[in-house]
């Protein structure tokens, strides 16, 4: 029963990683860049929702939609100002710019909203849970919502990139930007669109993250962001189902390692597993091995 409890806690933590990882992997898969500022867009989304709900007394749904709208705009603006001018530059330059954007967002948030922690109003009360086996096991409603949101987003993204015209354009850009341009695809607009979707997902992730873990500070997004990036690599970066799988596994391993081995070595074990997986499958669990053109 203890094991089942740990497993459920692991899935609940993992589902949060997964939902952030979806945004990471989406942007990486199409724009081929690591958007380290993703975690901080999450933080901005959470603040928007926090203020909408607690300061302006708006309903939660409106708060989430508002956060999505703001994050979408923010994502497109960041892409346009920071990444677009570097489209022809090396990937290292873009990576460093992304780290810069991440610090910028954190410090701007601190200036605007102070570093005092805020308690995020959850979308459903944290105490709501479903009891199984005479109350020996309980699953919180939030966890179920998070997992459901994860699956819906994953299916939605898979459908979007696979079937729609915009999605096809995205995949074309991801394969070969120059060729896509020759075929009449507006590469810049497609990449902006990717950022818009990724950032809107970040807002949802932020709301769910803060609903589960309540405290909101300007650095809220950074650690889950890095863990989610790890999850995305674990599952195979660029692969949408891989992000979900990677996130869930990472959460479960983290909790089980803490519960059965040692809370001191929790992270060490998580990353040791990651190293082993990458040694055996360098492209991640569900990643496609791409042969580098020489």
């Amino acid at each position, binding site marked *: 029963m*203890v094991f089942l*409890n*740990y497993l459920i*806690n692991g899935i*609940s*933590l993992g589902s949060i990683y997964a939902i952030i990882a979806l945004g990471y992997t989406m942007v990486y898969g199409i724009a081929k860049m690591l958007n380290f500022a993703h975690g901080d867009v999450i933080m901005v989304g959470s603040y928007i929702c*926090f203020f909408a709900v*607690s300061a302006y007394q708006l309903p939660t749904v409106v708060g989430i939609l508002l956060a999505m709208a703001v994050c979408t705009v923010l994502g497109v603006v960041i892409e346009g100002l920071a990444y677009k001018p570097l489209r022809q530059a090396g990937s290292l330059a873009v990576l460093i710019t992304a780290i810069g954007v991440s610090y910028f967002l954190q*410090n701007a948030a*601190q200036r605007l909203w*102070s*570093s*005092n*922690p*805020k*308690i*995020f*109003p959850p979308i459903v009360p*944290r*105490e709501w*849970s479903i009891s199984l086996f005479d*109350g020996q096991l*309980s699953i*919180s409603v939030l966890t179920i919502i998070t997992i459901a949101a994860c699956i819906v987003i994953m299916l939605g993204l898979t459908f979007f990139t696979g079937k729609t015209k915009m999605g096809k354009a995205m995949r074309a850009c991801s394969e070969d930007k120059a060729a896509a341009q020759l075929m009449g695809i507006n590469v810049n607009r497609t990449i902006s669109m990717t950022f818009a979707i990724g950032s809107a997902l970040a807002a949802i992730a932020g709301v769910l993250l803060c609903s589960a*873990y*309540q*405290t909101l*500070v*300007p*650095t809220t997004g950074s*650690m*889950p962001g890095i*863990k989610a990036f790890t999850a995305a690599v674990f599952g195979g970066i660029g692969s949408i189902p891989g992000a979900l799988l990677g996130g869930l596994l990472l959460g479960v391993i*983290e*909790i089980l390692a*803490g*519960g059965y081995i040692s*809370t*001191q070595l*929790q*992270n060490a074990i998580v990353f040791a597993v990651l190293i082993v997986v990458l040694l055996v499958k360098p492209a991640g669990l569900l990643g496609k091995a791409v042969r580098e053109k020489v």
Partner: protein
Amino acid sequence: MKKLRILSLALAGALCVSMLAGCGSSDQGSANTPAAGGETTPAGTETGSTATGTAFKLGGTGPLTGGAAIYGLAAQRGAQIAVEEINAEGGDIQFELRYEDDVHVAETAVNAYNTLKEWGMQISLGSVTSTPGIATSVLNFEDRIFALTPSASSPDVIEGKDNVFQMCFSDPNQGLASAQYIYEQGLGEKVFIIWKNDDVYSTGIKDQFVAEAEALGLEVVGDATFTEDTQNDFTVQVSQAQQAGADLIFLPIYYQPASLILSQAAATGYTPKFFGVDGMDGILTMDGFDPALAEGVMLLTPFNADSDDEATQNFVSKYQELYNETPNQFAADAYDCVYAYKLALETAGCTPDMSAADICDALIEVFPTITLTGLTGDGAGITWDSTGAVSKSPKGMIIENGAYVGMD
């Protein structure tokens, strides 16, 4: 660039002249010379209102940005309020305060310290947090600049340094006091500890707590830990405590992770007693925190913002007016530091034209002899021994209906 340099030279020159004119004496001590150069460096942060050269230059480093900014900003603001009060009185002791950002990083703190030294810092507020505090206290010792840190509580900050003093309890003392308090009051039979293993503050308290609990015969049934990177999820730690049959969980950590532990324990329906230390202070002031979660939480803390005491009320209302927040113990400690300096400088008869080293020697003599009645500490006052450790009694508090209530 060239224009700027000329401008700064002119400013420096003008300052030198004005100083010479103001003092008139031929004995221009070393304390004044760097001050002229210091004015030309770009201003780091807000400085005090007086820049007449007749005030003591008081400097400190703290995390004004980044993840630990809440502590640094609180200390800076607390000290600022005290400085403004003292300067407004217009007495002999006037201060000019300058805080530099150290982002809670030791290397940055050293740079921040050097900036302050160039500015002409005569007395220092050390660093706000322990890790940078250990680094800057070494420099304070080498440069013979006296330091009184509001909140860098690691014993390494003061160890072997005759001119570095603390306003806060040292970590081991908190562990000791907590174990004794729990044992004497019979608060718990089986104690479980959740601590943060990448933090000297938490580790220091926990080690001493375990040692003292063993000596007293207080049963510690287990402990679990977390780091900066894993402080989102405490379900494992909480269920380990539950399995160990703990009836009291000791939390030698800051209030942010503590609030999560409270909420995650409540979600599983596990209701042990919780006992915190001074880092728990601030939990009730978090925006939107449900005080019902903290009902019955006990803590030892030197400062209580809800106290009826007139000085505390005065400070709290000023702080709220200026910064729209309730001050925590860091602000109160820093406030007390400035008043402790005022008292010590008066007692020693120091004047602002003395060099940092002379002030340092005088203060080393005086500090172990003074008794300060401050915001932190009870009616018996705050005293220091010659090692730099503070002696003041912690207050046992319990949270009832969203407010601190004294336990004794």
